[in-house]
Protein backbone atom coordinates (compact mmCIF):
# COMPACT_ATOMS: atom_id res chain seq x y z
CA UNK A 1 0.00 0.00 0.00
CA UNK A 2 1.43 3.30 -0.97
CA UNK A 3 1.99 5.70 1.85
CA UNK A 4 -0.38 8.59 1.52
CA UNK A 5 0.87 12.15 1.48
CA UNK A 6 -0.78 14.76 3.59
CA UNK A 7 -3.02 15.71 0.65
CA UNK A 8 -4.64 12.26 0.71
CA UNK A 9 -5.03 12.28 4.46
CA UNK A 10 -6.71 15.62 4.18
CA UNK A 11 -9.05 14.28 1.50
CA UNK A 12 -9.99 11.34 3.70
CA UNK A 13 -10.60 13.54 6.71
CA UNK A 14 -12.53 16.00 4.62
CA UNK A 15 -14.71 13.27 3.14
CA UNK A 16 -15.52 12.03 6.61
CA UNK A 17 -16.23 15.54 7.83
CA UNK A 18 -18.43 16.36 4.86
CA UNK A 19 -20.39 13.12 5.11
CA UNK A 20 -20.83 13.37 8.85
CA UNK A 21 -21.88 17.00 8.80
CA UNK A 22 -24.18 16.50 5.80
CA UNK A 23 -25.83 13.59 7.60
CA UNK A 24 -26.27 15.49 10.83
CA UNK A 25 -27.48 18.65 9.14
CA UNK A 26 -30.02 16.89 6.99
CA UNK A 27 -31.38 14.59 9.68
CA UNK A 28 -33.82 17.16 11.13
CA UNK A 29 -35.01 18.16 7.67
CA UNK A 30 -35.28 14.56 6.57
CA UNK A 31 -37.23 13.82 9.70
CA UNK A 32 -39.63 16.72 9.19
CA UNK A 33 -40.27 15.79 5.57
CA UNK A 34 -40.77 12.14 6.47
CA UNK A 35 -43.12 13.20 9.25
CA UNK A 36 -45.17 15.36 6.93
CA UNK A 37 -45.36 12.64 4.31
CA UNK A 38 -46.37 9.98 6.84
CA UNK A 39 -48.73 11.74 9.18
CA UNK A 40 -50.10 14.86 7.57
CA UNK A 41 -52.53 15.50 4.78
CA UNK A 42 -51.95 18.78 2.95
CA UNK A 43 -52.06 20.34 -0.44
CA UNK A 44 -48.93 19.96 -2.45
CA UNK A 45 -48.00 16.69 -0.79
CA UNK A 46 -47.36 15.11 -4.16
CA UNK A 47 -45.31 18.15 -5.19
CA UNK A 48 -43.18 17.77 -2.08
CA UNK A 49 -42.74 14.09 -2.79
CA UNK A 50 -41.59 14.86 -6.32
CA UNK A 51 -39.25 17.61 -5.14
CA UNK A 52 -37.65 15.41 -2.52
CA UNK A 53 -37.10 12.62 -5.01
CA UNK A 54 -35.69 14.82 -7.78
CA UNK A 55 -32.05 14.54 -6.69
CA UNK A 56 -32.38 10.81 -7.23
CA UNK A 57 -33.40 11.26 -10.83
CA UNK A 58 -31.26 14.16 -11.92
CA UNK A 59 -27.60 13.66 -12.71
CA UNK A 60 -25.48 14.88 -9.79
CA UNK A 61 -23.68 17.29 -12.09
CA UNK A 62 -26.97 18.95 -12.91
CA UNK A 63 -27.78 19.20 -9.26
CA UNK A 64 -24.41 20.83 -8.85
CA UNK A 65 -25.29 23.38 -11.51
CA UNK A 66 -28.66 24.07 -9.95
CA UNK A 67 -27.06 24.57 -6.56
CA UNK A 68 -24.46 26.87 -8.13
CA UNK A 69 -27.21 28.89 -9.76
CA UNK A 70 -29.03 29.16 -6.43
CA UNK A 71 -26.17 29.65 -4.02
CA UNK A 72 -23.66 31.57 -6.17
CA UNK A 73 -22.92 35.27 -6.01
CA UNK A 74 -25.65 36.06 -8.48
CA UNK A 75 -27.86 33.20 -7.49
CA UNK A 76 -31.22 33.72 -5.86
CA UNK A 77 -30.29 32.52 -2.40
CA UNK A 78 -26.69 33.61 -2.69
CA UNK A 79 -27.44 37.19 -3.59
CA UNK A 80 -30.44 37.87 -1.39
CA UNK A 81 -29.81 35.71 1.62
CA UNK A 82 -26.21 34.67 1.98
CA UNK A 83 -24.44 37.83 0.84
CA UNK A 84 -26.27 40.17 3.24
CA UNK A 85 -25.32 37.79 6.02
CA UNK A 86 -21.76 37.70 4.84
CA UNK A 87 -21.82 33.98 4.19
CA UNK A 88 -19.93 32.45 1.33
CA UNK A 89 -20.77 28.87 0.64
CA UNK A 90 -19.50 27.97 -2.75
CA UNK A 91 -15.92 26.76 -3.04
CA UNK A 92 -15.88 25.96 0.66
CA UNK A 93 -16.34 22.60 2.34
CA UNK A 94 -19.80 23.77 3.32
CA UNK A 95 -20.82 23.66 -0.33
CA UNK A 96 -19.68 20.05 -0.42
CA UNK A 97 -21.86 19.41 2.60
CA UNK A 98 -24.87 20.90 0.87
CA UNK A 99 -24.25 18.96 -2.33
CA UNK A 100 -23.92 15.73 -0.37
CA UNK A 101 -27.01 16.45 1.69
CA UNK A 102 -29.14 17.20 -1.35
CA UNK A 103 -28.04 14.14 -3.27
CA UNK A 104 -28.56 11.80 -0.32
CA UNK A 105 -31.81 13.40 0.85
CA UNK A 106 -34.29 11.19 -1.03
CA UNK A 107 -32.64 8.06 0.36
CA UNK A 108 -32.71 9.40 3.88
CA UNK A 109 -36.35 10.47 3.73
CA UNK A 110 -37.35 7.10 2.31
CA UNK A 111 -35.73 5.21 5.18
CA UNK A 112 -37.17 7.42 7.89
CA UNK A 113 -40.64 7.11 6.35
CA UNK A 114 -40.43 3.35 6.40
CA UNK A 115 -39.46 3.52 10.05
CA UNK A 116 -42.36 5.80 10.86
CA UNK A 117 -44.89 3.72 9.00
CA UNK A 118 -44.10 0.91 11.41
CA UNK A 119 -44.97 2.93 14.49
CA UNK A 120 -48.33 1.79 15.81
CA UNK A 121 -50.81 4.63 15.48
CA UNK A 122 -52.38 3.60 18.77
CA UNK A 123 -49.19 4.48 20.62
CA UNK A 124 -49.33 7.97 19.16
CA UNK A 125 -52.98 8.28 20.12
CA UNK A 126 -52.16 7.03 23.62
CA UNK A 127 -49.51 9.72 24.01
CA UNK A 128 -51.91 12.42 22.84
CA UNK A 129 -54.68 11.43 25.23
CA UNK A 130 -52.12 11.25 28.02
CA UNK A 131 -51.54 14.94 27.54
CA UNK A 132 -48.64 15.11 25.11
CA UNK A 133 -48.91 17.73 22.36
CA UNK A 134 -47.83 16.76 18.88
CA UNK A 135 -44.29 18.04 19.27
CA UNK A 136 -43.97 16.25 22.58
CA UNK A 137 -45.32 13.10 20.94
CA UNK A 138 -42.77 13.35 18.18
CA UNK A 139 -39.90 13.64 20.62
CA UNK A 140 -41.01 11.06 23.13
CA UNK A 141 -42.75 8.48 20.98
CA UNK A 142 -42.22 8.82 17.25
CA UNK A 143 -38.48 9.44 17.30
CA UNK A 144 -37.58 6.61 19.68
CA UNK A 145 -39.86 4.17 17.87
CA UNK A 146 -38.71 5.02 14.36
CA UNK A 147 -35.10 5.07 15.46
CA UNK A 148 -34.16 2.14 13.26
CA UNK A 149 -35.41 3.96 10.20
CA UNK A 150 -33.57 7.09 11.26
CA UNK A 151 -30.33 5.20 11.76
CA UNK A 152 -30.78 3.45 8.41
CA UNK A 153 -31.43 6.80 6.74
CA UNK A 154 -28.34 8.31 8.30
CA UNK A 155 -26.22 5.34 7.28
CA UNK A 156 -27.52 5.55 3.73
CA UNK A 157 -26.78 9.23 3.43
CA UNK A 158 -23.35 8.81 4.96
CA UNK A 159 -22.52 6.00 2.55
CA UNK A 160 -23.87 7.89 -0.44
CA UNK A 161 -21.93 10.94 0.73
CA UNK A 162 -18.64 9.08 0.64
CA UNK A 163 -19.18 8.56 -3.07
CA UNK A 164 -20.60 11.93 -4.02
CA UNK A 165 -18.71 13.45 -6.87
CA UNK A 166 -20.72 15.18 -9.56
CA UNK A 167 -22.56 17.76 -7.52
CA UNK A 168 -19.67 18.46 -5.18
CA UNK A 169 -17.12 19.22 -7.84
CA UNK A 170 -19.38 21.86 -9.38
CA UNK A 171 -20.36 23.82 -6.27
CA UNK A 172 -17.28 23.23 -4.16
CA UNK A 173 -14.59 22.98 -6.79
CA UNK A 174 -11.72 20.59 -6.46
CA UNK A 175 -9.35 22.48 -4.20
CA UNK A 176 -6.83 20.21 -2.46
CA UNK A 177 -7.01 20.57 1.28
CA UNK A 178 -10.15 22.69 1.09
CA UNK A 179 -12.82 20.93 -0.88
CA UNK A 180 -11.10 17.89 -2.31
CA UNK A 181 -12.92 14.87 -0.94
CA UNK A 182 -11.95 11.25 -1.63
CA UNK A 183 -13.95 10.93 -4.87
CA UNK A 184 -12.45 14.16 -6.21
CA UNK A 185 -8.97 13.02 -5.32
CA UNK A 186 -9.61 9.69 -7.00
CA UNK A 187 -10.84 11.50 -10.08
CA UNK A 188 -7.69 13.57 -10.14
CA UNK A 189 -5.47 10.54 -9.87
CA UNK A 190 -7.28 8.67 -12.57
CA UNK A 191 -6.71 11.55 -14.91
CA UNK A 192 -2.97 11.49 -14.68
CA UNK A 193 -1.11 8.69 -16.42
CA UNK A 194 0.55 7.23 -13.35
CA UNK A 195 -2.04 7.91 -10.70
CA UNK A 196 -3.59 4.46 -10.81
CA UNK A 197 -2.01 3.12 -7.65
CA UNK A 198 -3.01 6.11 -5.61
CA UNK A 199 -6.53 6.05 -7.06
CA UNK A 200 -6.80 2.39 -6.12
CA UNK A 201 -5.53 3.01 -2.61
CA UNK A 202 -8.07 5.76 -2.09
CA UNK A 203 -10.79 3.45 -3.42
CA UNK A 204 -9.80 0.90 -0.84
CA UNK A 205 -10.07 3.52 1.88
CA UNK A 206 -13.52 4.38 0.62
CA UNK A 207 -14.57 0.74 0.61
CA UNK A 208 -13.17 0.29 4.09
CA UNK A 209 -15.12 3.24 5.39
CA UNK A 210 -18.32 1.95 3.86
CA UNK A 211 -17.78 -1.48 5.36
CA UNK A 212 -17.32 0.12 8.75
CA UNK A 213 -20.52 2.11 8.32
CA UNK A 214 -22.41 -0.96 7.18
CA UNK A 215 -21.23 -3.09 10.07
CA UNK A 216 -21.96 -0.29 12.51
CA UNK A 217 -25.43 -0.03 11.05
CA UNK A 218 -26.00 -3.78 11.39
CA UNK A 219 -24.74 -3.66 14.94
CA UNK A 220 -27.02 -0.77 15.88
CA UNK A 221 -29.91 -2.54 14.19
CA UNK A 222 -29.38 -5.62 16.29
CA UNK A 223 -29.06 -3.64 19.47
CA UNK A 224 -32.28 -1.81 18.75
CA UNK A 225 -34.01 -5.07 17.79
CA UNK A 226 -32.88 -6.55 21.09
CA UNK A 227 -34.12 -3.60 23.09
CA UNK A 228 -37.58 -3.87 21.53
Amino acid sequence: MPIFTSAEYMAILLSLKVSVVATLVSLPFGFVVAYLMTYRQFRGKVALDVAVNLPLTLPPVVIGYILLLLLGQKGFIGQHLLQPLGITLIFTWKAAVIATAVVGFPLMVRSIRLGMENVDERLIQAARTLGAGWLDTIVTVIIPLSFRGIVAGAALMFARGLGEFGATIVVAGNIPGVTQTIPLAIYEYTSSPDGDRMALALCLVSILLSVVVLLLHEYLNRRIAKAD
Partner: protein
Amino acid sequence: GEINLFVAASMREVVNELSADFAMKNSGVTFKKNYGASGALAKQIENGAPADIFISANVEWMDYMKKKKLADDRSVATFAYNSLVFAGRPGVKAASLHDVTKLEKIAIGSPKSVPAGEYAAEAFRKAGIDKQLEKKLVMAKDVRECLLYADRGEVDGAFVYKTDALQVAKSAKILFTVPQQYYPRVTYPMALTVTGGKKAEAAGFYRFLQSAEAKAVLAKHGFLVK
Protein backbone atom coordinates in the same frame (compact mmCIF):
# COMPACT_ATOMS: atom_id res chain seq x y z
CA GLY B 1 -17.20 3.01 -43.51
CA GLU B 2 -17.36 4.23 -39.99
CA ILE B 3 -14.65 6.25 -38.28
CA ASN B 4 -14.38 6.28 -34.52
CA LEU B 5 -13.02 9.51 -33.13
CA PHE B 6 -11.83 9.86 -29.53
CA VAL B 7 -11.33 13.54 -29.00
CA ALA B 8 -10.49 15.72 -26.02
CA ALA B 9 -13.65 17.56 -25.02
CA SER B 10 -12.16 20.99 -25.75
CA MET B 11 -11.94 20.15 -29.46
CA ARG B 12 -15.60 19.29 -29.75
CA GLU B 13 -16.83 22.15 -31.94
CA VAL B 14 -13.93 22.17 -34.33
CA VAL B 15 -13.87 18.42 -34.82
CA ASN B 16 -17.62 18.43 -35.33
CA GLU B 17 -17.19 20.90 -38.14
CA LEU B 18 -14.25 19.07 -39.70
CA SER B 19 -15.97 15.71 -39.63
CA ALA B 20 -19.10 17.19 -41.17
CA ASP B 21 -17.01 18.69 -43.97
CA PHE B 22 -15.27 15.40 -44.57
CA ALA B 23 -18.46 13.39 -44.56
CA MET B 24 -19.95 15.72 -47.11
CA LYS B 25 -17.09 15.16 -49.48
CA ASN B 26 -16.80 11.44 -48.91
CA SER B 27 -20.18 9.86 -49.11
CA GLY B 28 -20.47 6.65 -47.22
CA VAL B 29 -18.21 7.78 -44.42
CA THR B 30 -19.90 8.15 -41.03
CA PHE B 31 -18.45 9.22 -37.74
CA LYS B 32 -18.82 8.02 -34.21
CA LYS B 33 -17.46 10.62 -31.88
CA ASN B 34 -16.59 10.22 -28.25
CA TYR B 35 -15.63 13.38 -26.42
CA GLY B 36 -14.17 13.28 -22.96
CA ALA B 37 -11.19 13.93 -20.74
CA SER B 38 -7.98 12.83 -22.45
CA GLY B 39 -7.11 10.46 -19.65
CA ALA B 40 -10.50 8.79 -19.68
CA LEU B 41 -10.28 8.39 -23.45
CA ALA B 42 -6.83 6.82 -23.22
CA LYS B 43 -8.00 4.36 -20.57
CA GLN B 44 -11.04 3.52 -22.63
CA ILE B 45 -8.89 2.79 -25.67
CA GLU B 46 -6.53 0.75 -23.55
CA ASN B 47 -9.49 -1.36 -22.46
CA GLY B 48 -10.62 -2.04 -25.96
CA ALA B 49 -12.91 0.83 -26.82
CA PRO B 50 -13.24 1.01 -30.60
CA ALA B 51 -11.14 4.06 -31.54
CA ASP B 52 -9.50 4.93 -34.85
CA ILE B 53 -8.18 8.38 -34.17
CA PHE B 54 -7.21 9.83 -30.81
CA ILE B 55 -6.78 13.56 -30.30
CA SER B 56 -5.37 14.36 -26.88
CA ALA B 57 -5.33 17.67 -25.06
CA ASN B 58 -1.79 17.07 -23.87
CA VAL B 59 1.36 15.20 -24.71
CA GLU B 60 1.47 12.98 -21.64
CA TRP B 61 -1.55 10.93 -22.54
CA MET B 62 -0.26 10.52 -26.09
CA ASP B 63 2.99 9.28 -24.59
CA TYR B 64 1.00 6.89 -22.46
CA MET B 65 -0.68 5.62 -25.62
CA LYS B 66 2.66 5.16 -27.30
CA LYS B 67 4.11 3.36 -24.31
CA LYS B 68 1.16 0.99 -24.21
CA LYS B 69 1.48 0.43 -27.96
CA LEU B 70 -2.02 1.63 -28.58
CA ALA B 71 -1.14 4.40 -30.99
CA ASP B 72 0.40 3.88 -34.38
CA ASP B 73 3.83 5.39 -33.55
CA ARG B 74 4.55 6.78 -36.98
CA SER B 75 1.26 8.60 -37.15
CA VAL B 76 1.74 10.69 -34.00
CA ALA B 77 1.67 14.32 -35.06
CA THR B 78 0.64 17.69 -33.80
CA PHE B 79 -2.93 18.60 -34.64
CA ALA B 80 -3.02 22.13 -33.30
CA TYR B 81 -1.69 24.53 -30.72
CA ASN B 82 -3.52 26.69 -28.26
CA SER B 83 -2.68 29.62 -26.06
CA LEU B 84 -3.52 30.49 -22.49
CA VAL B 85 -5.56 33.60 -21.79
CA PHE B 86 -7.10 35.23 -18.77
CA ALA B 87 -10.82 35.77 -19.13
CA GLY B 88 -13.06 37.73 -16.84
CA ARG B 89 -16.10 39.93 -16.69
CA PRO B 90 -15.58 43.26 -18.48
CA GLY B 91 -15.30 45.35 -15.31
CA VAL B 92 -12.38 43.39 -13.91
CA LYS B 93 -9.10 45.26 -14.12
CA ALA B 94 -6.35 42.91 -15.12
CA ALA B 95 -4.01 43.39 -18.04
CA SER B 96 -1.08 41.25 -16.98
CA LEU B 97 -0.14 38.33 -14.80
CA HIS B 98 0.91 40.69 -12.03
CA ASP B 99 -2.45 42.43 -12.02
CA VAL B 100 -4.02 39.07 -11.28
CA THR B 101 -2.44 39.00 -7.83
CA LYS B 102 -4.66 41.91 -6.83
CA LEU B 103 -7.84 40.00 -7.54
CA GLU B 104 -9.82 37.97 -5.04
CA LYS B 105 -10.55 34.62 -6.63
CA ILE B 106 -9.14 33.01 -9.72
CA ALA B 107 -10.29 29.81 -11.35
CA ILE B 108 -7.91 27.39 -13.01
CA GLY B 109 -8.36 23.83 -14.10
CA SER B 110 -7.27 21.30 -11.54
CA PRO B 111 -3.52 21.09 -12.39
CA LYS B 112 -3.29 17.33 -11.96
CA SER B 113 -6.16 16.53 -14.26
CA VAL B 114 -6.64 19.55 -16.53
CA PRO B 115 -3.76 20.51 -18.85
CA ALA B 116 -4.82 24.16 -18.96
CA GLY B 117 -4.57 24.23 -15.19
CA GLU B 118 -1.13 22.68 -15.29
CA TYR B 119 0.06 25.32 -17.77
CA ALA B 120 -1.43 28.08 -15.66
CA ALA B 121 0.29 26.80 -12.55
CA GLU B 122 3.56 26.64 -14.50
CA ALA B 123 3.08 30.24 -15.60
CA PHE B 124 2.51 31.36 -12.01
CA ARG B 125 5.76 29.77 -10.96
CA LYS B 126 7.72 31.27 -13.83
CA ALA B 127 6.23 34.69 -13.11
CA GLY B 128 6.94 34.22 -9.41
CA ILE B 129 3.39 34.85 -8.31
CA ASP B 130 2.51 31.30 -7.29
CA LYS B 131 2.79 32.01 -3.55
CA GLN B 132 0.64 35.10 -3.80
CA LEU B 133 -2.09 33.26 -5.68
CA GLU B 134 -2.08 30.11 -3.64
CA LYS B 135 -5.07 30.97 -1.50
CA LYS B 136 -7.03 32.60 -4.29
CA LEU B 137 -7.23 29.65 -6.62
CA VAL B 138 -10.36 27.65 -7.31
CA MET B 139 -9.67 24.38 -9.06
CA ALA B 140 -12.28 23.29 -11.53
CA LYS B 141 -12.98 19.93 -13.13
CA ASP B 142 -12.35 21.29 -16.59
CA VAL B 143 -11.85 24.44 -18.58
CA ARG B 144 -15.55 24.88 -19.28
CA GLU B 145 -16.30 24.88 -15.58
CA CYS B 146 -13.66 27.59 -15.10
CA LEU B 147 -15.49 29.70 -17.63
CA LEU B 148 -18.82 29.03 -16.00
CA TYR B 149 -17.45 30.37 -12.73
CA ALA B 150 -16.06 33.46 -14.50
CA ASP B 151 -19.26 34.02 -16.43
CA ARG B 152 -21.38 33.91 -13.32
CA GLY B 153 -19.02 36.12 -11.39
CA GLU B 154 -18.19 33.44 -8.86
CA VAL B 155 -14.56 34.23 -9.57
CA ASP B 156 -12.92 37.39 -10.91
CA GLY B 157 -11.39 35.58 -13.79
CA ALA B 158 -10.16 32.27 -15.10
CA PHE B 159 -7.11 31.01 -16.90
CA VAL B 160 -8.39 29.14 -19.90
CA TYR B 161 -7.50 28.37 -23.48
CA LYS B 162 -8.15 31.06 -25.98
CA THR B 163 -10.42 28.82 -27.99
CA ASP B 164 -12.66 28.10 -25.02
CA ALA B 165 -12.83 31.75 -24.12
CA LEU B 166 -13.91 32.58 -27.65
CA GLN B 167 -16.45 29.80 -27.95
CA VAL B 168 -17.97 29.26 -24.57
CA ALA B 169 -17.79 32.47 -22.61
CA LYS B 170 -20.92 34.56 -22.49
CA SER B 171 -20.26 37.63 -20.42
CA ALA B 172 -16.57 36.92 -19.74
CA LYS B 173 -14.09 38.45 -22.15
CA ILE B 174 -10.44 37.80 -22.80
CA LEU B 175 -8.62 40.33 -20.63
CA PHE B 176 -5.08 39.39 -21.67
CA THR B 177 -3.11 36.62 -23.24
CA VAL B 178 -0.45 34.98 -21.10
CA PRO B 179 2.92 35.55 -22.75
CA GLN B 180 4.28 32.34 -24.23
CA GLN B 181 7.60 32.56 -22.34
CA TYR B 182 5.85 31.60 -19.08
CA TYR B 183 4.60 28.18 -20.12
CA PRO B 184 5.35 25.36 -22.54
CA ARG B 185 3.56 25.37 -25.80
CA VAL B 186 -0.01 23.96 -25.60
CA THR B 187 0.03 21.11 -28.02
CA TYR B 188 -2.77 18.84 -29.20
CA PRO B 189 -1.18 15.66 -30.47
CA MET B 190 -3.14 13.28 -32.64
CA ALA B 191 -2.56 9.73 -33.78
CA LEU B 192 -4.13 6.85 -35.56
CA THR B 193 -4.65 3.95 -33.22
CA VAL B 194 -3.36 0.52 -34.10
CA THR B 195 -6.76 -0.45 -35.47
CA GLY B 196 -7.29 2.94 -37.11
CA GLY B 197 -4.03 2.56 -38.99
CA LYS B 198 -5.53 -0.37 -40.83
CA LYS B 199 -8.61 1.48 -41.95
CA ALA B 200 -8.41 3.39 -45.22
CA GLU B 201 -11.14 5.86 -44.30
CA ALA B 202 -9.53 6.61 -40.98
CA ALA B 203 -6.22 7.26 -42.67
CA GLY B 204 -8.05 9.46 -45.15
CA PHE B 205 -9.61 11.56 -42.42
CA TYR B 206 -6.28 11.66 -40.59
CA ARG B 207 -4.69 13.20 -43.68
CA PHE B 208 -7.61 15.58 -44.02
CA LEU B 209 -6.96 16.79 -40.46
CA GLN B 210 -3.48 17.86 -41.58
CA SER B 211 -4.72 19.58 -44.72
CA ALA B 212 -4.73 23.31 -45.29
CA GLU B 213 -8.50 23.21 -45.31
CA ALA B 214 -8.54 21.77 -41.81
CA LYS B 215 -6.01 24.31 -40.64
CA ALA B 216 -8.28 27.09 -41.84
CA VAL B 217 -11.11 25.73 -39.78
CA LEU B 218 -8.83 25.41 -36.76
CA ALA B 219 -7.70 28.97 -37.14
CA LYS B 220 -11.27 30.14 -37.43
CA HIS B 221 -11.96 28.60 -34.02
CA GLY B 222 -8.98 30.32 -32.50
CA PHE B 223 -6.44 27.51 -32.55
CA LEU B 224 -2.91 28.16 -33.62
CA VAL B 225 -1.73 25.95 -36.44
CA LYS B 226 1.95 26.48 -36.25
